[in-house]
């Protein structure tokens, strides 16, 4: 193959794989938004909190699976605490108020994680190799690692499960009802508290999975929070209410930022990656504010 075309594909695939990681964070966000119409700004902080706790428990000497179990338990606790102390007092409030409360929550989680576990960068070894698979590299010249493949697979499975839960099960129906209106859902007997605890715990577990994959790649450190911010443009492009949209948008964001960096970046001294996704999101907002797959936003007086 022509080396330039090959190089393009290499960049593209690198971007797509990075995009899968963004999708994983965005997924937890969509989960909460679809089920409670809360913009959970704290999802990135939850990723950081979850994986830092996981690594912390491992350092305390717990074996892998026990640490995983304890962290899952911890995330469920976080979900319950969030429902009790943040969401319950704010039922039926304006969604901007809830958004700001989750910004507060994000800071609490980030601060707590650093208070308890310290600020140094940690390595996370999942036992999955993050080196190019030589067989694929030899055959096609494209470098893909096992970790990339696992991340893609995990994302696909989670998206499939969530899509089915939302569209096919009774629980999913209840969640969508809550999203439409807290008061209305309560009045027809949907237990709002359990629904919220369930959703936030699920989002916490999604955050843990995303954090583990990211931590294995980039190390467990505070910079994860900044990376997680990139889930926001993913959401806007995919639409806040669409689970499959998140995956597609994640791939678009990942691929376009890498391609922009490699092909346009050199003319400006690089660093385009830092803002390209946000600009792309702004463009989308101008022409298609509901995102690729989102429900059309209708506002009435």
């Amino acid at each position, binding site marked *: 193959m022509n080396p330039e075309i090959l190089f393009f594909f290499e960049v593209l695939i690198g971007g797509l794989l990075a995009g899968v990681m963004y999708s994983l964070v965005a997924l937890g966000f969509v989960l909460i938004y679809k089920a409670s119409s809360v*913009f959970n*700004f704290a999802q990135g902080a939850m990723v950081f909190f979850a994986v830092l706790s996981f690594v912390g428990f491992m350092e305390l000497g717990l074996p892998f699976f026990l640490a995983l179990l304890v962290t899952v338990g911890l995330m469920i606790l976080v979900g319950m605490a969030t429902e009790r*102390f*943040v969401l319950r*007092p*704010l039922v039926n409030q304006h*969604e*901007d*108020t809830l*958004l*700001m*409360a989750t*910004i*507060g*929550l*994000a*800071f*609490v*989680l*980030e*601060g*707590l994680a*650093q*208070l308890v576990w*310290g*600020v140094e960068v940690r390595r996370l070894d999942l036992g999955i190799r993050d080196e190019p698979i030589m067989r694929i590299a030899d055959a096609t010249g494209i470098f893909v690692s096992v970790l990339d493949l696992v991340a893609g697979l995990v994302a696909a499975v989670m998206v499939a499960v969530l899509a089915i839960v939302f569209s096919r099960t009774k629980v999913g129906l209840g969640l969508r009802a809550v999203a439409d209106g807290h008061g209305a859902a309560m009045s027809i007997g949907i237990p709002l508290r359990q629904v919220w605890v369930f959703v936030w715990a699920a989002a916490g577990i999604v955050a843990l999975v995303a954090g583990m994959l990211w931590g294995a790649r980039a190390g467990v450190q505070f910079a994860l929070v*900044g990376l997680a*911010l990139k889930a*926001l*443009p993913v*959401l*806007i492009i995919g639409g*806040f209410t669409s689970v499959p949209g998140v995956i597609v948008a994640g791939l678009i964001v990942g691929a376009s930022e890498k391609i922009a960096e490699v092909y346009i970046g050199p003319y*400006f*001294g*690089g*660093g*385009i990656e*830092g*803002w390209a996704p*946000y*600009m792309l*999101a*702004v463009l989308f*907002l*101008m022409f298609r*504010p509901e995102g690729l797959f989102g429900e059309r936003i209708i*506002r*009435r*007086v």
Partner: protein
Amino acid sequence: MYYRQAGTYRTGYAQDMRLMPLKEDRILLGLVLVIAFAVLPFTASDYWLSAILIPWLCMSLVAMGQNILMGYAGQLSLGAAGFMAAGAFACYNLILRVEWMPFPVAILLSGLIAAAIGIVFGLPSLRVRGLYLAVATLASQFFIVWVIDKFGWFKNYDTSGIITAQDIVIFGKAFTSPAEMYLVVLTITVLLTWAAMNMARGSAGRNWQAVRDMDVAAEVMGLSLLRTKLQAFAISSFYCGVGGALFAFTYLKSVEPAAFDINLSFRVLFMVLIGGLGTIIGSFYGAGFILLLPVFLNIFFHALFGKAVDASITSALEQVIFGVLIILFMIYEPLGLAKLWQNLQERMRRWPFKF
């Protein structure tokens, strides 16, 4: 008590339109201004002036800008630091490239430049709101800082990364001591606060609030959303730009893109949330609170352990405290410290009675 509304009769339109109808308020304000202008510059130590009062005033201006956009016009923004950077670098370049440029004119122009940029980045607000808009303003935050960082012209091709801000020169006199700089900042802050208070209670402010409360309804009633929203963005960015320029010139004394990162934007957001959404005076409370909390934490730990604690611990603790406070304020008093102060005043008015 000292605070009485009784006996305040308004006998003309001019009195009715006063910014402060209560005589007690006017006396209090006069006292504060006298202390700020005539007492503090001569009595406060250089540390207090340059490490606390100057950044407090600068950040109050920025918080005011954020408050106009968020508290009055209801447009959530996470880009305050970007506009601060725009103002700071505009001021640096104006003074650098135009020799005769007096400092007040440079400040005014850099505010206007920031306002122009704000209008461009405010365009998405015409179509989206809430978190959608926050993401769009994040774009402005990252993009502005990146542009300034990558195009050498803005930094005058300085490679060291630390650009010393020029001296403040007004009519041939250099304002270099902390007290002199404090007076410059104070004058600008007082003027802009006065302007903001009048805008907020005038037709501009009422239009913003109408858009905040329900933009569709406001449009149906004949308000131009385009004009109102972009006006809010422009004025907000103007305040952020002026605040940013003063922040860089009088507090940091250097102009560097790295100082205006996303964390600063979050701090500004917190100042508004804790100080009080939709109150001009709350910007001062919020800015003071956010700036002073680390100082108090340090003093507290000194008293508790007898020595300074690791900086990473205090900064993490700070984050937790900010976060908890924001959640508490959102739940119990969404209008922040300003409302708490107001409640206290009302209490004082009827003290010692309950009703």
